[in-house]
């Protein structure tokens, strides 16, 4: 393992349990092979969780694998492997890190490369991607992986949502999008049936959709406990506690995890036990995936008296009642509506505030609900999906909301070569001064 970095000290016990969770997910893929279960390479927030789980397909998450490599500061060898075969360094590094691992395993005749974190991921029986409106790598990554795993069948579905246009009522287009998403989910069911040799148990699927909705509700209820002053948990922990909702959706384990977290946060709030002793500044993590190799920077913020009671990143869930979903018994349609409405449910609000946008409305909602004094964005160079458009969000926020302090940090998710700790800390110092002045002005 490469040079170690002292991990951030976590505020919650629940967050401390996450390493085991992640490790469990990875070893589940290896165990599945022993038990004759099917393993699929899968990608987060694709809306395909319930279907995979209902078919007993064990997901192997490239994003998790790459994130772990990055957190251990041990991704470079995989990135270089991919680069040697002409994958540019400017591409999504979750993808190139994982592809580098795949290439290496193939060279070893299917053996896991030496020193792979936590035993690595199993070679998949299938690859399940989605060209959903999240990013290009969601469909290019599976395709590029197949170049090295040529016998592995690939499915790529799609799940779009109506684009934001302040002059058009997106509700008029929703039915088209839901119809399409549902049809694509059905294509996935057919693919899974073909490659597992099993038929979909539709009742079981419906039960998993129920469980997912329940988990979304509990997750949001739990996160909203962070509104308390002092906040009992901040983004540094949330970058851990996001694991179950992101990688274990539609499992009882995920639900149970948030139940425990919920209990813990209630207790902390009762005792007024905050992330730090003297909470001076409350910040919102406005957008951007974190630098997994530099999670210690959250600690740095904490040391300056700053906490993050909320973040946009990885909060890809909402209270179901706020989505106002149409009634239907069709589980595929329920999945489709839930995701389409999740991505669009700030549109109506944004339309009411001239010049605003849904992403900014969401930020404003969190600033107000969580009483934040500033917003921090992280711009990771290898992912356009979450990071292109951040300057614009900051600009709109200033225009429609007012002059709240904003920091845009630059770096990457996996590629450590872009990171300079001293510079980053200097920028944080300067930002904290700005926030302090802003608070003194009585904002």
């Amino acid at each position: 393992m490469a040079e170690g970095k002292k991990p951030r000290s976590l505020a919650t016990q629940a967050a401390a349990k996450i390493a085991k969770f992640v490790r469990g997910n990875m070893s589940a893929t290896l165990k599945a092979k022993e038990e004759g279960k099917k393993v699929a390479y899968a990608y987060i927030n694709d809306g395909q969780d319930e279907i995979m789980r209902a078919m007993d397909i064990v997901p192997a998450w490239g994003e998790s694998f790459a994130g772990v490599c990055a957190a251990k500061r041990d991704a470079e060898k995989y990135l270089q492997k991919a680069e040697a075969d002409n994958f540019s360094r400017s591409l999504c590094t979750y993808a190139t890190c994982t592809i580098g691992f795949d290439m290496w395993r193939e060279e070893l005749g299917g053996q896991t490369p030496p020193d792979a974190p936590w035993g690595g991921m199993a070679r998949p029986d299938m690859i399940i991607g989605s060209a959903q409106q999240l990013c290009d790598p969601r469909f290019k990554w599976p395709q590029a992986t197949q170049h090295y795993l040529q016998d592995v069948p690939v499915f790529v579905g799609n799940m779009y949502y109506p684009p934001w246009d302040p002059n058009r009522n997106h509700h008029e287009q929703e039915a088209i999008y839901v119809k399409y998403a549902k049809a694509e989910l059905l294509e996935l069911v057919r693919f899974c049936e073909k490659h597992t040799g099993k038929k979909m148990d539709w009742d079981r699927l419906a039960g998993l959709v129920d469980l997912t909705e329940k988990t979304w509700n509990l997750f949001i209820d739990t996160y909203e406990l962070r509104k308390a002053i002092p906040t009992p948990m901040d983004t540094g922990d949330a970058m851990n506690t996001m694991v179950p909702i992101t990688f274990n959706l539609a499992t009882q384990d995920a639900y149970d995890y948030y139940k425990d977290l919920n209990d813990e946060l209630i207790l902390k709030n009762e005792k007024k036990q905050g992330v730090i002793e003297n909470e001076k500044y409350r910040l919102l993590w406005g957008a951007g995936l974190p630098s997994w190799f530099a999670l210690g920077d959250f600690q740095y913020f904490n040391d300056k008296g700053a906490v993050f009671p909320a973040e946009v990143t990885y909060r890809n869930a909402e209270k179901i009642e706020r989505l106002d979903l149409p009634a239907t018994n069709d589980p595929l349609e329920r999945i489709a509506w839930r995701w389409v409405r999740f991505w669009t449910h700030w549109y109506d609000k944004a339309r009411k505030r001239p010049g605003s946008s849904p992403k900014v409305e969401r930020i404003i909602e969190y600033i107000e609900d969580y009483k934040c004094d500033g917003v921090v964005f992280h711009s990771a160079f290898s992912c356009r999906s979450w990071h292109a458009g951040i300057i614009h969000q900051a600009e709109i926020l200033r225009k429609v909301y007012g002059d709240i302090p904003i920091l845009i940090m630059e770096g990457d998710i996996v590629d450590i070569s872009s990171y300079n700790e001293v510079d980053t800390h200097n920028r944080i110092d300067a930002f904290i001064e700005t926030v302090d002045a802003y608070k003194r002005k009585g904002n």
Partner: protein
Amino acid sequence: MTQSENGNGLVLAEKYYSQYGSRARELKAAGRKVIGYLTALGPVEIMTAAGVVSLRLKGNVSEAITKGDAYMETIVCPFVRNVFDAAVKGRYDFLDGMVLPHQCDSIDRTDDVWSDTLKLPYWHFLNVPHVTDEPSVEFMKDILRIFIQTLEEFTGEKITDEAIARAVTAHNENRRFMRELYALRITDPPLISGAEMMKVLVAAMSLPVDESSALIKGVTDEIKHREMPPSTEQGRRIMLVGDQVDDVAIIEAIEGAGGRLVMDDLSIGSKMYWNDVDATPDPIQGIAERYLRKLKLPTTFVGTGNNYQETLEARFGHMKQYIEEFKVDGVILFVYKFCDPYGFEVPAIRNFIESAGTPVLYLEDEYSISTLARLKTRIEAFLEMIA
């Protein structure tokens, strides 16, 4: 009106190439509405049927980005950034509106940056899917209908099926003319140089379809009757593969080093002109199928093969045909930095073409001539290697 019919095709192409968008500007002054669009996914048939002048936007590789970066991150593909910068600087200040097709993240994630900054009267994001299965074709038809509806609201005119069918015929004819011009590159040496061809391609995408067709026909006639080809020297025959390469700079680097650019798989070149829209009873069906299934863009996922090799054939097989037909000796794969769709398929394309016996040079670069010197050295070395 076209001078091109009088044997001045190349002169006219040069004019429209160097004064890009000037014809659209004139038409705007004459009272027409002009809609700019990005990428090969802009459904020109529908814009033509709507009676608007459609203008595919390009940037300028010789111009540094000076204003756009204040609004748009540098992690966006350099082509998109450069066009945006041009637009912010007012180069396209005559536009009435724009269409951004969902080609890639660089476009999808910057849609509101464009629209909020440029504030044009008409704006549309065309949500083209990345998948080509049956439900996706149905969806594509639905979003094309939404596009039609917004254009109708904007122009105040109904877009009839008949008008769309007529536009389909006109654009198919335009493509046929361009293919005829491409055929003049098959001879050795080719009758038209790569640099000349680039100017024609760029000029053609800046004109209304009838004028574009007249220009192409004019150039073709002129070339056919040329006494001497641009160069009688033998040179290695090169195919250029990439997205929107829309300047002669890189081609001059190839041809200046003794190569001959005889074919391309570019999004302003053969990708645009090789596949027609089928005339279908519902004209939207044919349009949806062409843009989704026939355009060989890396932004659509193709998984139709029974095995990996078949899938590769479905994705890149056309390149092998070009190599054979145009007697290509070497392929240059030119990909912009930060482009995930093209970037992720570099190993596959490279392997596919090389295993068929044709060498490949992969270049990753900016949309800018500032780094050309470095590329020139690599191009020269490549040409020497395949000599």
